[in-house]
Structure formats: structure tokens, C-alpha cells
């Protein structure tokens, strides 16, 4: 990965994180996918980096917010939900699965954005 690609990805991750955070405060949970899609549509060095940015942008926000709620409530509910969903009362698994599920949606949406851009550019190039 080149230096500027790395920087772009960092910018993308931060953008996706902040914009998806704002979107999810008012819109349904899947608005995060729209955000990741649009950001990667706008700019993305490669397919891998698009997925990477979408995944980490969303996973970061979901994990951070989940951990914040967990800590603020002394983890009172995380264990019970872990027991219910995964048959283990450890809070690690609910947090991890939350981050991965959010990340996967974000990553795939980012990847979609990248490929749609490629397809559109392809069309423009063909026309000219």
C-alpha cells in the first residue's frame, strides 16, 4: 500500500465513522451502509482498501459505542444477552460479534461503492 493510499484510507475510515454515526442517530441502522457506499464511491484507491475502510469505519463506531454503553451501565446487560444469544455470559462475544456484523455490512457496502465507481468510470472511458 502506498503512502497516499494509506492516508486516503485513514480519511475514509474517519469519514465513514463520523458520517455513519450521525446518520444512525436519526436514520435506521442500515443507513451506515449508505454512508460507506457513498464515501467509497467518492474516493477509493482499491477494492481491498474500500472494504477495509468500510469495515473498520463502521466496526470502530459500533464497538466504541457498545463499549461505552457497557461501561456506563457496569456491563449489567451484556452478560445476560451473551447468555441468551451465544450461551456464554462473557461480554467479549457480544461486543466482538457486534463489531464484526456492523463491520461486514460497512465493508461490503464500501466495496460496492468502489465497484460501482469502477463501472461508471469504465463507462465514461468507453464513451470518450
Amino acid at each position, binding site marked *: 500500500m502506498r503512502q497516499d493510499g494509506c492516508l486516503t484510507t485513514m480519511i475514509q475510515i474517519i469519514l465513514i465513522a463520523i458520517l455513519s454515526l450521525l446518520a*444512525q*442517530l436519526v436514520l*435506521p*441502522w*442500515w443507513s451506515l*451502509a449508505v454512508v460507506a*457506499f457513498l464515501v467509497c464511491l467518492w474516493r477509493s484507491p482499491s477494492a481491498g482498501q474500500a472494504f477495509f475502510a468500510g469495515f473498520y469505519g463502521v466496526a470502530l463506531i*459500533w464497538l466504541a*459505542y*457498545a463499549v461505552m*454503553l*457497557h461501561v*456506563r*451501565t*457496569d*456491563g*449489567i*446487560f*451484556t452478560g*445476560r*444477552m451473551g*447468555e*441468551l444469544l451465544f450461551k456464554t455470559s462473557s461480554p467479549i462475544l*457480544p461486543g466482538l*460479534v*457486534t463489531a464484526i*456484523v*456492523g463491520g*461486514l*455490512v460497512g465493508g*461490503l*457496502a464500501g*466495496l*460496492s461503492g468502489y*465497484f*460501482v465507481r*469502477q*463501472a461508471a468510470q*469504465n463507462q465514461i472511458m468507453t464513451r470518450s
Partner: protein
Amino acid sequence: MRYTKAIVVSLLTVLLIWGLNRPWGGIPAFGPLLSPFVGFWQNAESAKVTDEEITIKGTQAPVTVLIDDKGVPHVFAQNDHDLFFAQGYLTARDRLWQMEFQTHAAAGRVSELVGDRALELDRYNRHMGMGYGAEQTLRGMQADPASKVALDAYTAGVNAWIDQLSPAKYPIEYKLLGYAPEAWTPLKCALLLKQMTSTLASGADDLLMTNILRKYGSVITADLFPDYPTREDPIIPPGTTWNFKTVSPLPPPPNDTTINDMIAWFDAGFRRPNPEIGSNNWAVGPSKSATGHPILANDPHLTLSLPSIWYQMQLVSPTVNVYGATLPGAPNVIIGFNKNVAWGVTNVGADVLDFYTVKFKDATHREYWHDKKWKPTRARIEVIKVKGKPDVVDTVFYTHHGPVVYMPGAKAFRKNIPIGYAARWIAHEPSNDIACFYGLNRAKNYDDYRQALAKYVAPAQNFIFASNQNDIAISPNGRFPLKWMDQGKFLLDGTDPVDDWHGFIPADQNPLVKNPPRGFVSSANQFSTDRTYPYYLNWQFAPAERGRRINQRLTAMQHATIDSLRMLQNDNFNLRAADALPVMLPSLDASRLSADQKKALAALKAWKMNNDVAETGATVFTEWTQRLLEAIWADEFDMGDSLPMRSPTFDRTLTMMQRDPEARWFDNVKTPARERMTDVLTQSFQAACDTLTKKHGSFGSSWAWGPHKSTSIRHLLPGVDAFSALNVQIGGGGGIVNATSERAGPSWRMVVALGEQPKAYGVFPGGQSGNPGSPHYQDLLETWRTGQLNELLYLQTAQDKSPRVKQKIILR
């Protein structure tokens, strides 16, 4: 190629989102559930709280709410409307899902939430006329201005909470099942009361008894199923005089041939009412209490569940200052106290559900035969919405008796109901039960108590009362049908007016005792009265052991304190064992037992007859008596679904062992040998030991009562173990004063000492919040388990300073 990639990956993304956004069978929609923005993370509540000022529409003046360290709201309103508004609002805040789910269940609407696996349950509730009964009750309540204000304000309060609720803040159960709360209505309050009637007053052995009568004849039936037990100590002390002139003439019974003529064979089964549902209450008068004023105790036993059945509240307005246990979904306090009086309830168990034959004129079911005339039926259309399936439309035909629960040819869901019979049930009467509680909440003395009780219909309760004017009283109270002796012990003839209910016992002639010479009043679901009471209530009541034990202890008790009554609530003495072991043990043939079985027998003999957690004797005795009853009766009285019957009671069985050890019933008719009492006792003891060995290994501490009984308090949604309290180690059991069995037990324990100011204690197994993510979900459980009580904070004004007040909320 690039197009393909773009399309495939985009489609994959959309597919993933779609898959995560919907439930798959019992698996919830993981996307919204896991999202920290709207999912379960949002349901976690912090233990730290801050004061709030909430602006809502609906109050007439500001309401101050103080929330104490146990999560109990103390409501200070400036008028009754605002008081009920706040009660609805705060109850919904802590218990919205529970109150809606319970009323959905009562209305036969569970299929809407979970699909067609609940269809037969819904059909049962609808065919029993739960919705019809709720509409009748609603009409009765709305006819009374005070009740109407309470209902409407309570409803507005619940809706004020729902209206401001964002999906992120929906209780977790909505998120797991994938639905949203709907608007509350006054009808839902009525449905909740019907649900209580269904739980407490829907028992009927009519079909089983009819089958027994048919198979064994009236002599054996009367002998094995007598109308009064051998060991009994009725609620109203024997010798109490009845100060009223009975209704004349009392309804005449039909001659015997009518009964036998109309009895037919039925292919339906029957649900036995849960014998572990019951309750204790008692009050000691000034002569027995250390304070010189009455002390009252109550613990209603129900199938324990989470969220907790009861919700504590203090309700203060210019007309009232009351504290106690409320039912989420109903205005007023149900069991509680105010400055001057305290009251409590236990279930009566009178026979208020009877089944009548129905003779339809033809297949249209438009007319039925009664009193030598064809009379029109009414058809009620029940539309059951089913999640993911088309609506199910049922027609239920009503005669003047009530609904024909299952039409000929149908299959009964609970095996509860004879097929082709109409149900006459007290739950279908118009009533205004909340007026009774409105009155009790505000009662200042005995006369107010009497006036309040006259307004109560169902489910009939033993209302116990104590006042700081030093009165104590108890009354098995509700609307009791006027019947001839044993009317409804068997199925009834729906064509003959002689079998109809003949009106109701006048409310002021319900059994009652005030300040009896013995210095205390009590009840534990046993017989309401001895046989001198002029009216028929039922031929059977709950077994008398709890009531007898309570009366023994109270008779001996002097200088009673709050703590001595608390100890009595936790009494684990097994009176059944004390009655039965002296009869059972001498006839057991120990020489036939194995070495391990002898160890169990030694433990049983050494047992002090207390159902404490560590006792193995309690386990052996309980399993043995269960096996014994099966061994004696199953061969003659358990023919499965082909002819549903029931066995005689333990009391009758014990009487037989004492007085008639050669009775034919000891013989197992399915074996060629002739078994005698000794054989049955010995074989059932061996069988009990075998079962316990299989379950817990060879005899030892693994047989201890606590782990064996393994009390569980389950969440209302089946299978949600993570939100349940499992294997709770606590003593007691069915028939024990501490009536904690595997699933049922004291759902609220309260002790109130009256005086200048009341001093009250209470606890229930769970907590104030219905949210499994709240610190108050089950913070009271350990206190309950260990038999302790919390002091109930009884405030005088909103300005009272108490270190226990943790939060102040103002509703404007």
C-alpha cells in the same frame, strides 16, 4: 466484467442487510438487535440516576415522583386524575412489555406475535369468552364515574409513555420478537382482571367427577370424594354465628334421577387447576400483638415469573395515601396499607365455573332447547390474526349460560373443557372490581372495608383486614352463585332451569368474621366455613395443611411482632408429613428394602419434618407420597384420555389408611396378586428411591430438598433462560406455609404493623423493573430467597427527607 462485479457485490450487500433486518423463525433480526444505536445495548440501564423534569400532555397539575433505592415510585399528585395518570405512566415505564403481553394473552392475541403455534391457546381464551367478559366488565366500570376517571387517566398515562418512546428504547422483548407496542385502552385493564380470574377462578372438575360417577356410581363417589375433609380448620372459626336471614326459598335440588339420566360418556380430557396456586394471610388482634395494635401479613402464591408479577407503588393525592402491590395494567393498589388500615387477599376457590349440556335444534346452531322452548343463540365472531398467515375466523355460539367453548367434534386445547358444553362462568358477569380497590385504598375503618367489599365480583378472595382502631376481620368475598348443594360438582343439564344458577348470594351474607375471641383471623385457601354456613360454595377447597399450621402457630403465639409473623411466612414445617408418617411408617415392611433404601428410610425417620434446603427427608417423603397416591389410585382412576378422571385427595387417602387398611383400593387390579396396604407402601417407597437414585445418584446429600426441588422463576417468554432465575435454593413446598414449590410460590410477602403510623415490610421475588438490563430487574430476589423483608418507605409529603430517596421526577 466491471458491471458484473458492481452488480454482484451491491446485490450481496443488499442481501446481507435484508437478511440481518428480518427475523428467521425464532432467531431475531440481528442487525437492529446488535446495533448499539437501536439494539439491545440501548436497554442497559445505569445504576446512577439523576433528577428529571418531564413535560408531558395529560396532567392537570405538576406531579412529583420520588423513586427510592429499590426502584419504588412514590407519587404525589394534586388530584385523583393525575394520580392514576402517573400510575399508568410509571408502570409503563417499568413494565410496558409485560402489561401488554399479558393482555394480549388474555385477549387471545398471542398468534399475532409468534405465529400459529399459539393458535390453540388463543382459540381457548376466546372460546372461554375472555374478550366477552372483559367487555362486560368494562361496561360495569365505565358506568361508575370514579372508576371511569381512574381507567381513562391510567390509560392516558400509559399512552403518554408509549408516545414518547423511540424504537431504540422499546423493551428488549419487542426487539427480540420484532414488534412494536400499540396504544393502551381501558379494555386492556379489563382484560388484565379477566386474566386474574382465569388464573384463580377457572378450576372445575365437573367432567372428571361426572366420569367417576358414571363408572363407580354415587355411593363410591360420595365416599371417596366427600363434601368436607377429615382434617380441616375453616377460615371462619367454627361456632361463628351467621347474623342474617337467608334467601328464601333456597334453590331446590333436582331429584337424583335427573343427574344420572343426563350423564353421558365424554371423550374429552381436563386440565386440573394448579394446586400450588394459593395464598396465606392472617392478622393478629391487639390481644396477641406486642404493640397492642393489629399486625397483618399476606403472601399470595402464584406461578412465579419475571418480570415480577407485582409492582410496588405509593400513591398520594388529597383523597388517599396508600402503599402496596399493584398489578401492572390495573389502577389502584391491590394489596397494601394506608395510615389507618391494611388489607390482603388469598384466593377463595368457590365453584364459579360450571358446564351445561347444549341441545341445538339443527346444524345452524341458531337455536337451543331450554325450559321446554327453543331459544335463540348469539353468535360472536372471533377474528384471530396470525403472524405470517391469513386470519382465522371462528364463530362462538352463546346460550344464556355462556359460550359453547368447543362445538361437538372439536378437540379441546387444554383438555380442560367438555366438548359441546356451554360454560357458565363468573368472569362473564358485568362488574366493577376496581371500585373495591379504590375504596380499600381510601378506607379509614371497618365500615369502609365492608362497603368496598360489596363492590367486588371476581376472582373471589379472602379479604383480610386490620385497622388502627384495633379491628381485625376476614371475609371470603366475591359474587357467589346461589346453588343447590353440590350443584356443579358434576356436569349440568343445560335444558333444565333447575340446573341454572339461581341468582347470587347477597354480598352482605358472604362469610365474615370480625374480632373473633381467638384473637386472630387467617386464611390459606382452605374451606371458607364449616358446614353450618347456609349456602353452598364448593365441595372441595385447597388442602388444609397450610391453614391448620398457621392457626396452630397463631393460637400459640403471644406478643407477636413483625418479625414473628415474618418467621411464620417462612415456616417450613411439613404438616402433611406429621399427619401421615405415623400412619405410613409402621406399615412399611423394611425387611424388603435394599441397603441404600434403608439409608433413605433412616433419614426419613430422623427427619424433623421441616422442608429446609438441606433436608433429604423432605425429598424422600414428597417422592414417596406421590408414588403412593399413584400406586393406590392410578389403576382405577387413571384411564388416560379415554376416560379422564381424578384421584381422591391426600386427606381422603390418609383417612382410608387409618380407618380402612383393608380397603379394596389398595389392590392393584392390573396385577394377579392381591396387594394390601403394606405392599403398596413398601413398593411405592422402593419406587421413590429408584427414581431418586436415577436422578441424583445413590442416597446422600445430592438428595437434599433444595437442589431436588430446584425452584425456578422463569421469564414470561418460554425458553428465555438468560432472563430467568433458575435453581433458586429455597425451602418450603406445596402444602407448606412457605409455599415455594418448583414453579409457584409467594409472589409478594407483606407484613404491616398498624398504630399511630403504620410500619410495613415487604418483598417479592424479582424487582421493580421489567427490564433485564436494569439493576432493579431482580435485586429483591436474594432478600426474598433468604426470607428477609425490606422496610417499605411510607412517606407523608413530597418534601419528606429520606436517605432512601434516590431520584426525583416532576411530571408537568
